[in-house]
């Protein structure tokens, strides 16, 4: 015998996979387990009293109902805006598509609570700039719009939810070959008829799932309702859960009130998954042949005006009013030389002591979460893509499972789980880290998964068979090929972390504030100028990262190659 049988070397990586699995279980099972348990616990043992109390209270029923109304209309409004925009940019000869895509991307990364805050300055019924202009023009006593109402809230939330619909649909439209549409046209259907009878039905699963994504956004959002609904005297589930933490805290009721939100999210995601099939995008099939843009004729400029009207509402106006407030002595006063100042910046960055710590905390958490998250996501995606361990499907499922947990609910679970021994993480950055990691893992995993799907396994096998070991192949072949995708993963997680509010608001302590929490604190005080300064800072940071990501990917991250 020249050589003996050699055991496979791959056993030694098994502990790594096991550790990853255990971590996932800890991130998910512990908080959710405690959440469920506390929701049915009382001093006398297990009980349904918390549920009875929570769902029997007419005030809380109203919050529940408000949330349903909000979510439904946000979904509908997002469709009304997102579908035509996707069709116009994906299918027609609309001019300025690059700019439009860039602006939609900007809406996508704008923290919704900043948008909501900006819209307070734009459309507060009396002091709002747009209402002032409207009154000046028409002489009317009534405002053009009152942002502190349910329709106002729906409007603002939809402005930052429609990109979800847009992305779903644009990516689906790319898969629908022009032939299918031209087959309709040759049979005599008009352009509109083709869009309505062929394109629309083909894109229907994507449309419905875009609707569900927007609904989920609206369900889980905390910042916008806190800024717009509370002044108007109504609650949504998330703001209600948050106010359960006022002293003396009613954690059991918060837990009981979280469960329906959790179930609704899980149910909707299940539905969405079924709609899209296993692959995660519409199975439209057909070759993705060359696509000929549909000429809009004289409607071109009308359509363009419409698109820019929407983007003005999501980007141009809010950013402008934030900039104005940041540089003005009084935001509601007209912009003039006397009203200009840099004092807000000086105060925010040099005098207000919370800022410095919050910026450091946010960066620290952002970098830590993004790094650990990207590594974990990459590892998980690699394991599941290469089927390295038995039960790899379960790992993939666990990695995306946190998507069903709204930030507020996750925070309640983490709060309960980690304010008691053996792991008292509350009061440290660690609990925020755990929250962010859990919350961002699905996004990171999805990105990493796409990355590894793009690295053909044969590329690794070719290295193996030529004599390179598994780890060497990982280092010399897989890693360089996956690098840009993993950098993008890092950026996605980082952006998600620095804008996170709904979990942070429950988990922070005075020593562990992050920028979003400081902004919220300042909001409670009505410090518009300082909020605007911090808001601009946050946006600058976000767009810096987006640029980095685009450079890494060589394309915009909405998915289309430009």
């Amino acid at each position, binding site marked *: 015998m020249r050589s003996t*049988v050699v055991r496979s070397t791959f056993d030694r990586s098994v502990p790594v996979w096991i550790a990853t699995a255990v971590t996932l279980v800890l991130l998910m099972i512990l908080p959710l387990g405690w959440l469920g348990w506390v929701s049915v616990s009382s001093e006398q043992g297990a009980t349904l009293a918390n549920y009875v109390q929570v769902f029997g209270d007419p005030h809380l029923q109203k919050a529940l109902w408000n949330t349903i109304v909000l979510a439904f209309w946000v979904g509908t409004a997002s469709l009304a805006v997102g579908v035509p925009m996707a069709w116009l940019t994906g299918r027609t000869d609309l001019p300025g598509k690059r700019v439009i895509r860039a602006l939609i991307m900007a809406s996508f990364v704008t923290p919704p609570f900043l948008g909501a805050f900006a819209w307070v300055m734009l459309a507060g019924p009396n002091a709002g700039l747009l209402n002032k202009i409207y009154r000046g023009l028409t002489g009317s006593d009534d405002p053009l719009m009152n942002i502190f109402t349910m329709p106002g809230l729906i409007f603002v939330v939809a402005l930052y939810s429609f990109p979800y619909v847009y992305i779903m649909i644009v990516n689906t439209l790319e898969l629908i070959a022009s032939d299918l549409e031209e087959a309709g046209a040759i049979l005599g259907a008009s352009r509109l008829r083709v869009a309505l009878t062929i394109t629309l039905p083909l894109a229907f699963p994507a449309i419905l799932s875009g609707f569900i994504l927007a609904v989920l956004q609206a369900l889980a959002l905390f910042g916008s309702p806190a800024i717009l609904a509370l002044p108007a005297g109504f609650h949504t589930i998330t703001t209600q859960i948050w106010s359960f933490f006022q002293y003396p805290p009613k954690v059991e009721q918060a837990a009981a009130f979280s469960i329906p939100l959790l179930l609704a999210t899980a149910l909707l995601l299940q539905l969405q998954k079924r709609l899209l099939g296993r692959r995660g995008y519409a199975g439209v099939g057909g070759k993705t042949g060359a696509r000929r843009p549909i000429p809009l004729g004289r409607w071109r400029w009308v359509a363009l005006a419409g698109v820019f009207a929407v983007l003005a509402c999501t980007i141009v106006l809010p950013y402008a009013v934030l900039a104005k407030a940041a540089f003005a002595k009084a935001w509601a006063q007209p912009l003039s030389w006397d009203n200009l100042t840099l004092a807000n910046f000086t105060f925010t960055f040099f005098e207000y002591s919370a800022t410095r710590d919050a910026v450091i905390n946010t960066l620290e958490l952002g970098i830590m979460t993004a790094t650990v998250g990207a590594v974990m996501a990459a590892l998980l995606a690699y394991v599941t893509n290469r089927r390295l361990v038995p039960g790899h499907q379960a790992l993939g499922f666990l990695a995306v499972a946190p998507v069903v947990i709204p930030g507020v609910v996750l925070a309640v679970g983490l709060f309960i789980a980690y304010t008691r021994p053996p792991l008292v993480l509350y009061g440290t950055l660690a609990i925020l880290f755990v929250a962010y990691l859990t919350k961002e893992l699905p996004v990171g995993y999805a990105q990493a998964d796409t990355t590894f799907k793009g690295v053909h396994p044969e590329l690794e096998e070719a290295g193996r068979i030529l004599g390179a070991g598994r780890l060497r192949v990982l280092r010399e072949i897989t890693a360089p090929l996956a690098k840009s995708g993993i950098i993008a993963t890092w950026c996605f997680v980082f952006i998600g972390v620095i804008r996170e509010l709904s979990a942070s608001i429950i988990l922070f302590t005075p020593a562990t504030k992050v920028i979003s929490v400081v902004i919220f604190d300042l909001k409670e005080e009505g410090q518009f100028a300082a909020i605007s300064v911090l808001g601009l800072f946050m946006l600058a940071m976000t767009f810096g990262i987006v640029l980095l990501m685009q450079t890494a990917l060589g394309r915009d991250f909405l998915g289309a190659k430009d």
Partner: protein
Amino acid sequence: MPGVTLRGLSKRYGGVAAVDNLTLEVKPRELVALLGPSGCGKTTTLRLVAGFLTPEAGEIWVGDRCLSSATAVVPPERRRMAMIFQSYALWPHLTVAQNVGYGLRFRRGMARADRDRRVSEMLRVVQLDGFEARYPSQLSGGQQQRVAVARALVVEPEILLLDEPLSNLDANLREEMRFEIRRLHETFGITTLYVTHDQAEAMVISDRIAVLDRGRVAQVGSAEEIFQQPRTRFVADFIGRTNLVDAVAATPDAVTRGGLRLHVATADLRPGARVSVSIRPHEIAFANTADGRAGDNVLSGRIRRVSYLGDAVDYQVEIEGSDVILRVAAAPALRLRPGETVRLVIPPSACVPLPE
């Protein structure tokens, strides 16, 4: 140069056997094609040999080394093999020279200069000298293919594995590459397993063909053996076009179906047994073009359909007194029309009985 022995190899995916108790012997310096339709287990077999998969049963031996068994597997990097993939699997982040030289880096004691020399030599062999600094994305499909070949050959593997290497090329290039691969095999003499679903490719390239059917070897032999003497209905049907007549043995050397009686190539049939008979269309002649020899089967029939194929004409002939329709290939010079009555001559040697 060792050979490869696969012994009772089995691999299941979710309860379905992809490879089922497969046994095959590849002699040293031999090129064996694994041929079969998709899902027959040929790629799984190749990946078992490469060590990417662990068999549930059976063993793989190369020379006197047992590389795979149900309990232990030598990892791919220690098998001294090379493989050419369907996707070529060229690394897009490495240049042509880096791609080709990759495997040489694991040769202990090989100097860098030596390595570079071997790489450029090999590139010359595949006619890619001067392309060292290019990246794979800057090459045509055929050039990429040749880089893949060079990368596999430069390491002088004991065993070379090819997984449908030509399926991504267009028809002309594919035919050219068949000869190229055969030429390289004759030059280097590496024991080779070649997976393909294309019978012509298998016939041109290989010393022997192993036809795979549902995870098992249906028949192994030279191209001629497989074509002339298919051993199963599956092989006969899969390799080339054929007429299959389901009949019953009447005597040890003849079968009947309805009013049709055929003398066949063997004399050991058990009367009363069910027998399928394979008759290649080009072995059937029309009586007015070829005089039959004594003992030939002579049948009358009527032309049903005529298809002109350029280098031949394909006829469908209804055989008188039976439900059998035979396809006959004839030279284009002969022009028969649908409805014409004809007589067919079939030598018994062309009627190959297949065990049911």
